[in-house]
């Protein structure tokens, strides 16, 4: 075996650094799903009747649906009755102070590099920390309030801004949308709610950090971001989970709603536990994310760096309804060891002169298998609409796979769709060139992979871009060593 190959093998066996478990006392409902569990969740959160009804309708609809099987991933049947649908740290967090948050929870976030305490919190980013099923803390509340920005846990928003929540919930992703969205609508526990009023540019980046801790629980969070006319916001999402032998389910729904001239930029660095090198354990990440460019000239941009999870099923999408609205999707997905990912996007062009850009970079190492699946649909009225899609795959080693399924549907003869795709591998000759100039193989691979992902990383906020680059080289470390 050549040195490079050995390195790639070793890189593929890099350990997951975020796999620790926190010793936090939790209230967890017994596993199982039925109407009583949904009523219990709703009651725990003191929800209004309309929301409970909505959940129950979603549950009834979910029961009529079958788990999708069209995606190119393989995993054992999920037993939805073996999952606990609610788990919360026992100590109740209070809104204005972190004093009552379990210190173990705070320590957990500190360990993850997301300090929440007043002294240590991140300067320019407001963070909402979601631990298992509930939000434990949200920083920078006062400053955001002054700007008129609402950024709070979903469950609090239901209490404090019920009309806003009711107006937008399910508007972009109805509970009938798909199997996992229906399940999420029935049992979602928390998440983040963001509302940027007319004309306001959010004074800082907003961020939610999701952490699954408890065993045998699923995380079903719901994020709803609304930007009124000419408002703008940048939102970051991060996620990790402990290293466990059994698989855990994460089925989130994210809805973005952009009014006229509004801009929402949503970035994800997804680092759920990917399972061990034999594919044991890890998170099933079955997520529905969609943005509605409702107003003219609105803009929604998705950037994702997907390095974790054992199985990923995720297609952040844009519905370009407003004329001249813009949708963007920038993605880096890495599958290593036995990880599988079926990910991509949908760009639905409805309005005139709508534009969309899709840049997808897939990296497969080890026995990782990865699929880009994307739909570009040009509606009848999408005069002058344009899409550009570029899908690049990089293969490390000879046991991984990359697949591309682009779907293009055009009902308007003036619309233009472009698709480019490439597949590359890091050649032994490229590594040798780097070595010959004095650069060791590990640095060479990191550099080549980072170069491959450059177009996407440049879309991330700076701190995230640095983190993403590091995360990528850690995820690859030892795959070249």
């Amino acid at each position: 075996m050549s040195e490079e190959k050995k390195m790639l093998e070793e890189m593929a066996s890099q350990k997951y650094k975020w796999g620790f478990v926190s010793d936090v006392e939790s209230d967890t409902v017994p596993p199982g799903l039925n109407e009583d569990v949904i009523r219990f969740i709703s009651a725990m959160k003191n929800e209004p009747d309309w929301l409970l009804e909505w959940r129950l309708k979603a549950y009834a609809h979910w029961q009529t649906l079958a788990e999708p099987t069209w995606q190119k991933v393989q995993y054992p049947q999920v037993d939805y009755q073996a999952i606990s649908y609610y788990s919360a740290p026992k100590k109740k967090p209070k809104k204005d102070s972190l004093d009552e948050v379990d210190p173990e929870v705070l320590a957990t976030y500190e360990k993850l590099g997301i300090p929440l305490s007043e002294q240590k919190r991140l300067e320019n980013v407001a963070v909402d920390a979601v631990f298992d099923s509930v939000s434990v803390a949200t920083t920078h509340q006062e400053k955001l309030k002054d700007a008129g920005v609402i950024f709070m846990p979903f469950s609090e928003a239901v209490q404090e801004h019920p009309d806003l929540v009711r107006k937008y919930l399910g508007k972009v992703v109805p509970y009938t949308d798909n199997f996992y969205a229906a399940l999420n609508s029935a049992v979602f526990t928390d998440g983040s709610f963001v509302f940027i009023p007319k004309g306001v540019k959010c004074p800082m980046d907003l961020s939610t950090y999701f952490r699954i801790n408890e065993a045998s629980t699923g995380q079903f969070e719901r994020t709803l971001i609304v930007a009124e006319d000419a408002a703008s916001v940048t939102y970051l999402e991060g996620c990790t989970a402990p290293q466990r032998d059994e698989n855990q389910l994460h089925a989130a729904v994210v809805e973005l709603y952009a009014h006229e001239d509004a801009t929402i930029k949503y970035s994800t660095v997804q680092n759920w536990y990917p399972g061990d090198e034999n594919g044991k354990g890890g998170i099933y990440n079955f997520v529905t994310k969609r943005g509605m460019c409702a107003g003219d000239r609105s803009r929604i941009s998705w950037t994702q760096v997907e390095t974790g999870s054992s199985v990923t099923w995720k297609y952040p999408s844009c519905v370009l309804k407003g004329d001249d609205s813009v949708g963007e999707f920038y993605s880096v997905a890495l599958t290593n060891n036995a990880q599988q990912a079926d990910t991509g996007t949908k760009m639905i062009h409805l309005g005139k002169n709508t534009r969309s850009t899709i840049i997808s970079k897939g990296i497969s190492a080890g026995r990782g298998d990865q699929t880009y699946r994307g739909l570009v649909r040009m509606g009848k009225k999408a005069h002058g609409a344009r899409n550009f899609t570029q899908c690049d795959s990089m293969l490390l080693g000879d046991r991984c796979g990359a697949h591309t399924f682009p779907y293009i549907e055009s009902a308007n003869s003036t619309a233009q769709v472009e698709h480019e795709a490439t597949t590359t591998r890091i050649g032994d000759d490229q590594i040798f060139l780097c070595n010959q100039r004095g650069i060791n193989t590990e640095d060479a691979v990191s550099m080549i992979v980072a170069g491959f992902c450059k177009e996407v990383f440049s879309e991330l906020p700076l701190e995230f871009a640095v983190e993403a680059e590091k995360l990528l080289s850690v995820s690859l470390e030892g795959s070249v060593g």
Partner: protein
Amino acid sequence: MLKIRNLKASIEGKEILKGIDLDMAPGEVHAIMGPNGSGKSTLSQVLAGNESFEVTAGEVTFMGHDLLDMDPEERALAGVFLAFQYPVEIPGISNEEFLRAAINAQRKNRGEPELDAFDFATMAQEKIKLMEMRGDLLSRSLNVGFSGGEKKRNECFQMAMLEPKLAILDETDSGLDIDALRVVSRGVNALRDPGRSFLVITHYQRLLEHIVPDHVHVLSDGRIIRSGGKELALELEDKGYSWIEEAVS
């Protein structure tokens, strides 16, 4: 500088180098000439440490180190530079990123601080001018979209930036037009130094009109069959390789 004794190497079980002996003193320029398939490129790849080739016998000493015992990057850090016959492309990495990573790996190895962007730019501009390369060279992806001649000049540009002790030029003249040949030669000559040796591998005598060697060796079927001064190259040009091959056999 470099001492090669009875070096034998094979690829996929086929023996290519069948016992090479060579001595190079600091500051010397040695030319290796020979017909296609004689093992010229194999010799350069083996010296640089390409693991596709298996060294089956022999010793190589470079500035007192056992070269064959070193990884490719260790050889590079010790001052061995190979200008590739077919420079590979690396998309997404700019020439600047690549070279800074290389220079800083070497500086780190010598215990020196990293080169800052300003010093790097000053150094690079001077060498870009020397190699008559386009001003946007540094921001372009490594060798991507470069013409054959540009790639070769870029190899020499990297050599000029890295200032190696031993530079191996593997058919750097092939694919160059007469103007590019002149530029490359001038670049190499500018780097000639009492502490730096060159191993110039070429098919043609014309390169050696510009880069005048101290010694010329003829490689045939994995062995050096004749060594001499620069006049040997002229004789070869005149009579062809078969002349020596017949004379030796």
